[in-house]
């Protein structure tokens, strides 16, 4: 299936842009498919195309020197990625990986996009909105990662909600833990992994087992 005007008219960048204008842009778009787990962009790569998710889901993330992953954003159909590299003339600041079995992306090279935006104020205005929304999301993530000790909060939540097997089980999803800790779901997943690295808890399929309560108490700042 090739990309159509309908496909691009719903993208954040092109909302409200006339169909006649979009039809001039359509031939400049490429389309690629990825299978689950395939890398679309690697952090540091000099990739100068703007990407849009056509179908499936794309995970945007950074990886630390120790191999720890921090999800930045889950990108769904209609949303863009690699905007920063395209508009800053720099390398990609993050990696993008297909999460869905058949993930379809549309892409347009910056050398094709820029002349269009220079002539189309609506598209340029849309781009500002998209980038401002992304900046807000990144600032929230910075706040979560640097100003709040999320691992300690998650440790406290686990202690407050744990029961011994015989008493039945308290159940919590990562979204619920995120809401309780006042943070993003993406940050909770990482905190749980960090807690597991300390040896205080063990993650077992659908269970979080507290194996060293004293250590967890310490990590929660409770003693």
């Amino acid at each position, binding site marked *: 299936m090739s990309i159509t005007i309908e496909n691009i008219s719903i993208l954040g960048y092109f909302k409200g842009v006339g169909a006649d204008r979009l039809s001039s842009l359509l031939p400049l778009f490429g389309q690629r498919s990825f299978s689950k787990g395939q890398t679309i962009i690697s952090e540091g790569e000099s990739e100068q195309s703007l990407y849009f998710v056509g*179908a499936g889901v794309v995970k945007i993330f950074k990886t630390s020197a120790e191999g720890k992953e921090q999800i930045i954003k889950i990108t*769904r159909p209609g949303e863009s990625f690699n905007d920063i590299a395209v508009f800053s003339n720099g390398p990609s600041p993050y990696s993008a990986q297909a*999460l*869905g079995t058949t*993930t379809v992306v549309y892409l347009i090279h910056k050398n094709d996009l820029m002349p269009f935006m220079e002539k189309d104020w609506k598209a340029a205005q849309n781009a500002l909105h998209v980038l401002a929304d992304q900046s807000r999301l990144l600032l929230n993530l910075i706040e979560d990662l640097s100003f709040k000790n999320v691992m300690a909060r998650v440790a406290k939540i*686990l202690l407050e909600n*744990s029961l011994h097997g015989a008493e039945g089980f308290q159940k919590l999803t990562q979204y619920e833990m995120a809401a309780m800790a006042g943070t993003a779901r993406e940050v909770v997943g990482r905190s749980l992994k960090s807690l597991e690295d300390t040896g205080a808890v063990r993650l077992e399929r*659908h*269970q979080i087992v507290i194996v060293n309560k004293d250590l967890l108490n310490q990590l929660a700042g409770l003693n």
Partner: protein
Amino acid sequence: MSTLPVLDPTKCDGCGLCVTVCRCGALVMTGATVTLVQVDDCGWCCDCELVCETGALQCPFEIITIED
């Protein structure tokens, strides 16, 4: 029989994203919504919960202490 994520069909808008990320086949589109089918190898990766924007899918963790 293994535990599966919890689905609230009233919240499901049928976007199908969970089906595309699931590697165990527990999630199937049936008409306009998703249904769960019993499988043995759901690894509780929570990807379905992660991509579901409506909160229709939940992967709850039991929190247990094994110390006295």
